[in-house]
């Protein structure tokens, strides 16, 4: 069992699901002959043929619409957004068709819409976004963002098998990051949607986070250890529905919480999590729920600007120290 990248883990998950279930098929721009802009689906066309690996025109609404229709007929379509930013072009189809179908007409829409997300690679304002908050106020959608190869494989499988529309965010900074390579079982396994993971046990302070920021939190934890602050790091993995139990449990344990995400601050997921913590564990709080996020601007392109924009380990340290002292 060799250690594999997050990208390879997603690839394996997709591949195995296509082997397992003939109803699973892929569609998206340049996913066939080219294997996808990030090569997640390289080799799929050869193995599964053009019927199951469909290169589409540049038409995000048509892509997701076709996925919805096929799903209604019992298929399990997986649609790729070349960059997740372009999901804005099918916002209506996702929020008004896919999300509402089960409730309105009793017809579930088991589709997966996946794509490369997030910044840190100097992709600029249109190739770096984190889009989860666009969709958080629309009941009927699920959202997943894995941070490890092991989780990625188990979660992409869970997403495909899920009976509802799942948006699957793949952080492009993690795709081929050698540092997070992991040995991953070759066979079939599933990580349940809706379950967080405790990436690091700690007793003083909790950081609730997801995606690439998990590593920022873990780095901060290492540094804080030396200062005698013991961080617990929760990786949400699923953003909708997020794991209330895990959140409440960590708050009860440490009484101090930082919510860390890469999306911009205002209207980001941290707000929602703060509200849930207020409602479900207010009496356990020994300090304000504290946000560490990107600043409220588009994602800038030049490296120094993007670095300033993104939450850094230093920002977590600062927040943690001040919260610890509260």
């Amino acid at each position, binding site marked *: 069992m060799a250690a594999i990248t997050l990208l390879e883990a997603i690839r394996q998950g997709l591949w195995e699901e296509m082997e397992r279930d003939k109803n699973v*098929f892929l569609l998206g721009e340049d996913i066939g002959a080219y294997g996808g802009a990030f090569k997640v689906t390289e080799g799929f066309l050869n193995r599964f043929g053009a*019927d*199951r690996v*469909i290169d*589409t*025109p540049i*038409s*995000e*609404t*048509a*892509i*997701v*619409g*076709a*996925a*919805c*229709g*096929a*799903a*209604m*007929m*019992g*298929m399990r*379509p997986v649609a790729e957004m070349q960059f997740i930013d372009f999901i804005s072009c099918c916002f*209506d*189809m996702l929020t*008004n*068709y896919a999300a*509402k179908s*089960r*409730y*309105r*007409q*009793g*017809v*579930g829409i*088991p589709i997966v819409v996946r794509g490369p997300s997030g910044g840190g690679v100097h992709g600029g304002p249109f190739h770096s976004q984190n889009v989860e908050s666009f969709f958080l106020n629309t*009941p*009927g959608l*699920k959202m997943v963002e894995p941070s490890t190869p092991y989780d990625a494989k188990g979660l992409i499988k869970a997403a495909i098998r*899920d*009976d*509802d529309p799942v948006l699957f965010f793949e952080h492009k900074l993690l795709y081929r990051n050698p540092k997070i390579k992991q040995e991953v079982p070759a066979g079939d396994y599933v990580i349940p949607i809706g379950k967080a993971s405790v990436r690091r046990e700690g007793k003083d302070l909790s950081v609730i986070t997801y995606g690439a920021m998990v590593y920022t939190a873990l780095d901060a934890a290492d540094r804080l250890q030396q200062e005698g602050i013991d961080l617990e790091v929760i990786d949400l993995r699923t953003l909708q529905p997020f794991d209330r139990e895990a959140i409440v449990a960590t708050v009860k344990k440490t009484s101090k919480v930082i919510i860390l995400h890469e999306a911009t601050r205002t209207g980001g997921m941290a707000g929602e999590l703060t509200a849930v913590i207020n409602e479900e564990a207010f009496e356990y709080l020994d300090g304000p729920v504290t946000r560490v996020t990107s600043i409220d601007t588009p994602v800038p392109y030049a490296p120094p600007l993007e670095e300033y924009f993104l939450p850094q380990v230093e920002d977590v340290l600062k927040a943690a120290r001040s919260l610890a002292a509260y």
Partner: protein
Amino acid sequence: MEPAKNLQLDFLYFMRLTRGLEDRIDNLLKQGKVVGGFFRSLGQEATAVGSAFALDKKLGDIVSPLTRDLGAMLVMGAKPREVFAQYLARGSSPSHGRDQNLHFTDLDRGFIGTISPLGALVAVMNGVVLAARMQGKKTVGMVYIGDGATSTGAFHEAANFASVQNLPLVIIAENNGYAYSTPTTRQMRILNLADRAKAYGLPSEIVDGNDVLAVYKSAQRAVARAREGGGPTLIEAKTFRMRGHAAHDNQSYVPKELLDQWRKRDPIDSFERFLRNEQVADGSEIEEVKTKVEALLADDLAWAESQPAPRPEDAAGGVYGGEFERALTS
């Protein structure tokens, strides 16, 4: 070759059923019983009925009608009582009161309800027939689009996708002169919706949408082509919206002459004339159709009116699969 007498009488039956059903909804509306808006298809019944009859339910054909395609829903097997219950927002309506008018779906009977954002269902129907083809079925899909709705990005992306994938889809473009208050001439600078097809390399036909036989035959050709793997067709049905956009709209913006002109071409009147003139059916047979329609509608309306509203708490649940699902009012 003309269709058999039975079939022709069926055309009449479903056009009458559409009109009678909508007349009754109009009445309910006046009584304040209808919840929400009412978009009727007066004058357009032939387009919906004629086209849907070209489908073959045994082969799994599926249609996605617009709100003005009640006739197509009925042809596929939607029941008047279901439609009444929808408009009356009863708990036992197909959507259990959660959604309105023709927004309901039954894949077994072969219809998929539309949603309000225009154009979306063309994209969804692509997926339906794509899936059917993958599954080795012979299914043909039919989807409707209004003149105005052909201006949406969703329509364009979907029509192009259908063409590239050579999907077994028939697109019925209903040119009824207006999109809400906007005449087709201010919606686009082409005279025929059929010209939209040229951007996709799609074959197209223009048909008199008020002539149920002509619509039927045109749709048959398109369905046959789709069935044989010849890909999608766009049929423009030229017709006219004889009422306002919805019940609240007196369409004062429509020139009276235009309405007068189209009134003379009422699809039901002219088809009845045709049946008589061609001696397909006599007066009593035509009367009989009416009687049958009236009886069914009276029954179904009575049933729907007797149904209770949904229980408030049934608003919750059913958003996600596997979720605790309250037994909805039956």
